[in-house]
């Protein structure tokens, strides 16, 4: 899985891909994880059903540059807010959060207000998603 058109724009970056809550749809998370790896990033994937506290702790322990949350169950608002709070509680509120999944457009302003850097849905081309993450983490 190397040599894609994205190149290694994320070389040297460490990114945590996390599945908070009970949602079991992990294909999007895994596809993004593979694409991030293709783009040179070191990817840590949490697996399913993790609490916001657990995700925050792994983010700090692994010294990541960003946390990507994947939520398809409609619970994104609560889970983003809780993850943000968990990160802040251990003085890691500066780690940027990206969000992917089934996220209705009308929820986006509130999610940005809660501190999400960028929101991605399944129909966006992977190349665009990677470029956007790279641009944000520059």
């Amino acid at each position: 899985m190397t040599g894609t058109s994205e190149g290694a724009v994320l070389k040297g970056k460490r990114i945590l891909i996390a599945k908070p809550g009970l949602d079991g749809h992990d294909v999007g998370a895994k596809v993004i994880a593979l694409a991030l790896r293709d783009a040179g990033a070191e990817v840590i994937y949490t697996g399913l059903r993790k609490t916001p506290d657990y995700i925050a702790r792994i983010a700090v322990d692994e010294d990541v540059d960003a946390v990507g949350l994947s939520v398809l169950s409609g619970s994104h608002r609560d889970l983003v807010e809780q993850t943000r709070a968990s990160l802040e509680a251990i003085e890691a509120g500066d780690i940027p959060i990206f969000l992917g999944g089934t996220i209705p457009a009308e929820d986006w302003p509130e999610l940005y207000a809660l501190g999400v850097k960028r929101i991605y849905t399944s129909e966006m081309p992977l190349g665009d998603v990677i470029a956007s993450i790279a641009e944000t983490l520059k």
Partner: protein
Amino acid sequence: MTASLKQAAPHEDLPRTPSGIELPVVATAKDHGVDDSLPGEYPFTRGIFPDGFRGRLWTMRQYAGFGSAEDSNERYKFLLKHGQTGLSVALDLPTQCGYDPDDGIARPEVGKVGVSLSNLSEMEILFDGIDLSKISTSFTINGTAAIIYAMYIACADKKGVPRAKLTGTIQNDILKEYVARGTWIFPVRPSMRLIADSILYANDVTPRFNPISIAGAHVRDAGSTAVEEMAYTLANGLAYVDELISRGGDVAKFAKRLSFFFYVHMDFFEEVCKFRAGRRLWARLLQERYGVTDDKALMFRFGVVCGGSSLTAAQPFNNVVRVATETMAAVLGGAQSIFTAAYDEAFQIPTEFAAELALRTQQVVAYESGIANSVDPLGGSHLVEFLTDRMEEEMRRVMDEIDAYGGVTKAIEDGWMQSRIAERALERKKNVDSGKTVVVGVNAFTKSDEGASTGETFQLDPGAAKRVIDKLEAVRARRNNAAVERELDRLAQAAENDRENLMPYLVDCAHAYVTVGEMVERLKRRWGNFQEPIGI
């Protein structure tokens, strides 16, 4: 398979189906074998009934459920009033994963993707005013399937409906949860025991109820091809057969109550032939491996979803056309029940308008198109017979790969199947991104004002979760808590003995208003949690 299949030289430019099968420009009799079987005859290539849909149309079963039991009960009555012939219950994630709604990890998810059913009193509300002896009910439930089934029986008992009259289905297919859907709870071994318990119990107590629906749908939606969807599903099916036999089950008896569940995607002929090939292959496998001869036990009965990941959020009204096309493929493939997804399903819980339009879509196909009037009308088409042969061959090849790896359980515990699906998903995504796979409105024929008109939006009642938790507290306060402890202890005791069927104990727990979370917690103490392999 016939020798002529191998003659075509592989050539990159040849059109292929999404599963990678090369298609001839024109198929002729030379391209396929001879299968003279009639509908209703082994190996059932042309369908399981001699008269197809003339005797009885497929069941139109729309998946619905959200918020509290009261909300869902109202939607069910609406759907039944509009001519739906079976109910399909969507459960929320806490119920599916075995947490009560007041559990910390559950709270953000209560009532979100389905209805919250934490105990028998919620089930009683859910089916209030609905006659369980007349309506078949399908529950999309896996990790806690045995518990929800126990509650359904307890609910029928309370309503005075004889258990033997219950019809419906619990999905109860844990293997694909580990691979694609993610609502596993216990490790593979005790999960297989619970499934065998529920199937063997159902065969005796609710003989008209389908205690398992072995599902390829989720693996497919996650990324696998049509061939892999069927191959993985049949491999899982054989794993259940082996488990049941090891528990003393009689394959000629329990096989009559195994059913299957798939997605229909957009490649029309591949989908039709997937069902023809899968139906034939299942009958052959049961005969080859277990010597089953009873026709009824060899019949491959299945339901489908038309929609899923073939639907798009961009230009959502296009989804109506997709669902109509897929419905025709399902009918021509001989499905026993069809769920047509609503056009807005790709991005929200369907509105009533969208849900009704989805049901109307299959009613138009059923009553106006005429395609259900003769059995297997595509049978004998050279292309259809060619693809049926080729897909069966490819399905066997994939199943052999799983066997060579060491079988389904090992492939799942190691994460081998999960990795394969993730790689397929990435491949599918790249093909869409590059335009190799055309998706109208997404990577072709796009408009600049995309996403603007999706019709009305559905709003979940934000108070639903709180009401669910309030009701749970009230149940805990008014039930006989000594009886709860007693039933939980009996359950735990029975779980110690692997040969004991746990179903009667779960039914007793349900009657005592023990919650889903309490039953799961008690079983976890004995069995532990599944350890997810998370390598990617």
